[in-house]
């Protein structure tokens, strides 16, 4: 993997595992992080929906419909989930400091 997924390899791997869970016919070794899922494996609206459902369940983040475009590639998705997780944690961080 390269690009922004390299910044958080653990998160990248978790998200890749979810991707394969909702699209079992996708070979995780062939996923190109920067390229849109739609172009790589004909991702359709149901795939995107299932992927968003899996991310919601795994990370406990709410994903508005208008944000589905942020899930278009592995890189974008890692960045989006990381940002959402930080946003959820920040109130707690603020309390501690």
């Amino acid at each position, binding site marked *: 993997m390269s690009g922004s997924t390299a910044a958080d390899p653990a998160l990248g791997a978790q998200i890749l595992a979810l991707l394969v869970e909702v699209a079992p*016919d996708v070979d995780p070794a062939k996923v190109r992080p920067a390229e849109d899922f739609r172009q790589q*494996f004909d991702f*359709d*609206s149901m795939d995107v929906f*299932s992927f968003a*459902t899996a991310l*919601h369940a795994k990370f406990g983040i709410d994903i508005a*419909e208008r944000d589905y475009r942020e899930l278009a590639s592995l890189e974008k998705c890692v960045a989006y989930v990381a940002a959402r997780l930080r946003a959820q944690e920040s109130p707690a961080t603020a309390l501690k400091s």
Partner: protein
Amino acid sequence: MPSLGADMEAGTLVEWRVQPGAHVRRGDVMALVDTEKGIIDIESFEDATVERLIVQPGARVPVGAILALFEGEPTKVAAPLAALRAQRVSPAARARAAQLGIDPQTVKGTGPQGAVTLQDVEQAPASQGPPPSPAAGRAGIRNAIAVSMSRSKREIPHYYLQLSMDLRPALDWLEQFNAARPVPERLLLAALFNKATARAAAEKPGFNGYYGKAGFEAVKPVHLGVAIALRGGGLVAPAIREADQKTLPMLMRELQDLVMRVRAGHMRSSEISSATITVTSLGDEGVDVVYPIIHPPQVAIVGFGSVVERPWAIDGRIEPRPLVSVTLAADHRVTDGRLGAQFLARIRDLLTRPEDL
């Protein structure tokens, strides 16, 4: 061996999921069977106890053959087994056929009693064109589509109708519905399309059922076939059973489950064989209109194109509106254009009031 499609003649038992003595309920998966459409989960037709498994894994058996016996039905064995008429294939021919990735049952046999010999198999690829790719499953699906669609174009006198619909009410309703719900409870537009089509099929006669030797046989429940594209090519159209009776959230869950299982290669026997009408949607691909081909023995198929914002005249003004072109391909032996037009208009009216779907 249940028929898993109008053109299926035989299937290969891959694995038993039950053992003698096991109690199964209607719908439980009993076995996995390999067909041209991929591996299918074979479900039990009834609540019963398994007495004996008749067919061994690896065996290819024709449609109608008994796979297993339930307790209390001993007399049913003999006849169907006697009817076993799968083509004889010599062991060497079977092994070579597996190497070459061809189905020996499709090869014309020249041996004793028409058995397929090693030589028949080796000559088969030449007579059948280029040898199939290593993706034998994919080739099987391509072949199943070829057989079914050729039959459709040969036998069914299609007529086509197309209606443009303003989806503003449906999309507004959908946006509101989804905004108030977490991801797993949201709907896709496809669920609305499916429900509207299923309702119209239940209400308008002549579009839901099968065309057989005795002509058209109407069916009451709507088992809605949904065309699902496979990545890299090919498609299958398993059914959501009794789709007209299900709520939108139920239809959405079932559609999601179906798409994932189909792409993972796990369809159920009750899904693959029972569709009474089919919906195909190419909206994700950006085409305006799809002119679909009926899946025999069904008599109608409804196609949805992309939703695109276009100028639309409404109350004497031009407004941008999200439009979709909906097509109906129907069997002229059963219905005429007038009924077809009413059917499409009904779908439009249902989509105009999504809250009532």
